[in-house]
């Protein structure tokens, strides 16, 4: 990591980025030039180096602690994906969180009326679910009506009803919730909770609009989850296991699936939108 940091000049990076763009289509590989400008506002993204992830789930628990997340739901976790026959059995780890998409389906389907908003001088429109101009996709639980459309339409299954809270736009329902990239920490100049604890330093956060940032330099060969959905995820995966992330997402096992679904099932059956 550090070698790369020192080694790449901006010119080299642009060259790499161009190459990356050429091979990107169809393979989940990312065109790193997308949305790239030398200047401009901050754009927070996360790069996850799968070579460095040892599946310890410290990130998962750190996130639980950071937000005092209720049992049964998770903002971030790690999927274990096992494959291969003995003695060539293998296990991959896939850290899993909101992808903070540039083309977020959750925002598209949110039925709450958009309002004008401003973030650090940049104007944008804001539904209950919205993308902040510096990158994170957020939920305004005060305006959320708890309809669950965003939850159903997230291809990554990273959203859930926040079981102990009331939706501001419909107190009879629970609001949507998910990873917010720890914006409260980013705004205070601090890395997200999962990044802080990650023992392999697998989770790397940074400004993709800064060509010298660590995340920019790690973009080469980066892949995203479910690229065919056209969501333009802003969580990137690198490392040897990156080619298998979509298998891991589809076939991997994680407690979150069990826990989230148990709770969601209850909500769908008995909640305000049941039937």
């Amino acid at each position, binding site marked *: 990591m550090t070698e790369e940091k020192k080694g790449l000049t901006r010119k080299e990076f642009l060259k790499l980025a161009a190459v990356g763009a050429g091979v990107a289509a169809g393979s989940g590989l990312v065109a790193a030039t997308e949305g790239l400008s030398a200047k401009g506002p901050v754009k927070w993204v996360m790069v996850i180096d799968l070579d460095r992830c*040892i599946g*310890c789930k410290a990130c998962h628990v750190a996130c639980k602690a950071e937000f005092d997340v209720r049992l*049964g739901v998770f903002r971030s976790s790690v999927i274990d994906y096992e494959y291969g026959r003995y003695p060539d059995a293998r296990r991959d780890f896939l850290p899993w969180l909101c992808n903070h998409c540039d083309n977020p389906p959750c925002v598209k389907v949110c039925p709450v009326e958009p309002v004008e908003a401003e973030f650090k001088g940049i104007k944008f429109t804001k539904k209950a679910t919205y993308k902040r101009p510096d990158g994170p996709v957020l939920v305004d639980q005060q305006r959320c009506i708890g309809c669950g459309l965003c939850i159903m339409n997230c291809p990554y299954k990273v959203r859930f009803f926040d079981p102990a809270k009331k939706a501001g736009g419909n107190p009879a329902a629970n609001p949507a919730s998910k990873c917010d990239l720890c914006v409260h920490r980013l705004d205070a100049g601090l890395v997200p909770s999962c990044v802080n604890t990650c023992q392999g330093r697998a989770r790397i956060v*940074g400004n993709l609009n800064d060509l010298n940032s660590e995340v920019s330099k790690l973009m080469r060969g980066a892949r995203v989850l479910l690229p065919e959905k056209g969501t333009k995820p802003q969580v990137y995966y690198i490392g040897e296991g990156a080619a298998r992330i979509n298998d891991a997402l589809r076939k991997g096992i994680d407690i979150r699936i069990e826990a989230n679904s148990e709770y969601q099932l209850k909500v769908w059956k008995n909640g305000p939108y049941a039937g």
Partner: protein
Amino acid sequence: MATREMSRRDILRIGALSALALTTMKLNRAEAKTVQGRMDSLVMGGKDVSPVTKKERKAIPTACWSCVTRCAAMGYVEDGRLMKVESNPNSIRTEGVMCSKGQSAPNEVYFPDRLLYPLKRVGPRGGGKWRRISWDEATDELAKRLKKLRDEGRPEKFFFHYGRMKGSSSKLIKSVFLKKVYGVGSYGNHTSICEGGKWTGQELTWGKHYDNWDMDNTRFVLNFGSNIFETHTNHIPVAHRLIRAMKERGVELVTFDVRLSNTAAKSTEWIPIRPGTDGAVALAMCHVIMKEGLYDREFFKFIKATKNHKASVDEKISSLKKHLSRFTPEWAEKESGVAASKIAALARKFAKTKPACVISYRGAVAHYNGAENERTIQMLAAITGNVDNPGGRCRGVGAKWKYPKPKYHVKARKLKIVDGPKKGPLHAKLPTHHVSQLVLRMIKDGSQGRPEIYLWYCYNPAYVNGENREYAEILKDEKLIPFTVTSNIVYDESSRLADMILPDATYLERWDWEDMVSPAQIPEYYIRQALVKPLGQSRDFADVVCEIANKMGLPMGFNSKEEFVRLSCEHTPKIKDLPGGGFEYMKTHGVWHDPKEKPHYYGYRKEVKEKDLKKKGVIFDEETGVYWNWKKSKAKSEEEAKKKGYRHTKKAYKGYVGQKIGDKVYKGFKPDKINKSGYFELYSDILEEKGFSPMPTYYPIPEHRRKAPDQLVLTTYKVAMHIHSRSTHRKWLAELFHDNPAWINPETASRLGIGDGDRIKVRSEVDEIVTKARVTDNIVPGIIAISYHVGRQESGRYASGRKSPFGRDDDIDLKFKWWNEYGVHPNWVIPNWVDPVSGQQRWMDTVVTVTKA
């Protein structure tokens, strides 16, 4: 990634160079210092902000205690409530990172089934009925009972048994109160159910135990049964360095394990191996290395490989070659199932990659042959020169605190129940870390006397040993033990068998100084400070000890652990001179290391100063070549010491000064607990005298030899998100892991007619359990693996579904708990058996019959 390929090539190049000039190798972390780094414009840690109020939380440096690693940490507090714990970014051990267990710290304080009041049983022991009592009532009664035993001259009838006690807690409770003030020299520990055999193996070879693995400088790691990426006694400090070494320097990790642990999964290569055969593979590797001349000739100077300590290097090499000649890779393949060609290739790679590090843990040592396996693995490190060198297997380095020692002159008395029986199949001949799994059995036996008061602390004897059914019965029997007390935070399988329960403070509510081994080979001093006030009426047990001592009229010169920590800070060299005073500095920063200190390597090569050989009491022992000070031993006179000699004088090792090699005297490998010479002993006179092979050998596991073809070997394991038996009450961890189906290979399962998810009966010669099967390719055929964290009968609703006495209902998550499976505890069927050398509990040896239930 491209960088990985690059660095591998680089490493080969550098490797060739450095093999010639190892001593001049630049250490990339010799000047290890603060790592409070940044990630681009962002700060990595050291502060925390509320996601609700956006206000910065109060940050207090402290230390984790989830596991024995005891990482330096930061606690974040909001309105008097502990919100979060992260790593201390200034720690050279953790370098700012933390594991899932550490992150679950707030659960430890606020779990709803926590014990918060002193309790006394009502009705029969184990009946589950309790009444609240005041602290005064509790300490009055204990002080009265303890004083009576002491006044009657039989303090040893008070038996204290701890599961984990380290740093200042250990010094205050054990070294000061029990030993010096109260006068009892026997107490139970738990090392033999952990890794005692590993330590005995080390004491026999290089002296004082604890091997630090220098991941920052190594170029190859060979792993015998350590699950370093999920759990370890120095987990985060070593694990994060290993994954960094793998990623940034292309270091390869090869793991022998019966199971695809996360460590095996993350290894460059996982090599499945039959249980208990690691020693055979290591021996065969040594065979190849010696035969092919790949050994480090220079290190042989410090090795003892013959009976005669004056043997030349050539004589030692030829003796070892001869000894190893029968342990061929082909022989090891038959034992272990690992291909001979693989063993030979790995031996060559290990010997040729400089430096390389061989690591080991319970997969290799929790066996009948545990201590011997560790000795063999030590031999592999030694003959390749990978001992106490940058990048190798190093002798652990930790902080050296000074602490207050009140002046009492009592000769401590002992109850001889800590080392198991003196004869029979459960006799261990060299139990240097005791035989804790047999303490309750010894009490039942009664031939060595029984305690009248049995107090356990941070320990759950009815759950953590084998044969749980029998041990719970012993603990319950008022005729065997008249009075039982525990200090605990959780109402567990043993607390319910206590007569009195003292609610302990959690590690987040108490003070300590700590000293765990530093992977940087530079000692780190750090403290734990209370982040919040103890919940309810809970109190740090060490503070309770201070009060009881006072009530007995035995003042210790301090009245709390906080005071003990303060006095230690004021008396410890270097710490006491820190800016603002030692205690204030440590409270503000939490950690300190000497920035001028160089990493500790090659301590054995130092020569002993002439004046130290001329000190009063120092004599030379011809038989071993050891200079030693007889006055520090149990010898009554110089004449007696000379007559008995170094090896046969009780506690002679305490006077060890140096080892004569040729015409020089070296510090060598200083002994601990046994009268070993200062050589790295591959030839052990001590073992020879006890009737074992003096040279490292392989003892096949007798029960495995005898087992019927359809029987399986049961092995247990830990997972990344639990701490032994100590964390199932933490909801965030229990949510991740609360059930433990038994792993079984598809081939084995089909042979036994077992399908995935089937109920199965697992029967050993001592008991049986019914659990579920998980048919998986992640395990060697012929074995069954069951994790041991779960399968609780108590420990609260998150762990067992059962509410503890006086449990609260104020945790909102009780409403959202979504699991009602709690697993099955494997220890019920595991006999309390011993490694005949060390007394190590044989966790991984049990032969079981598995059938569909």
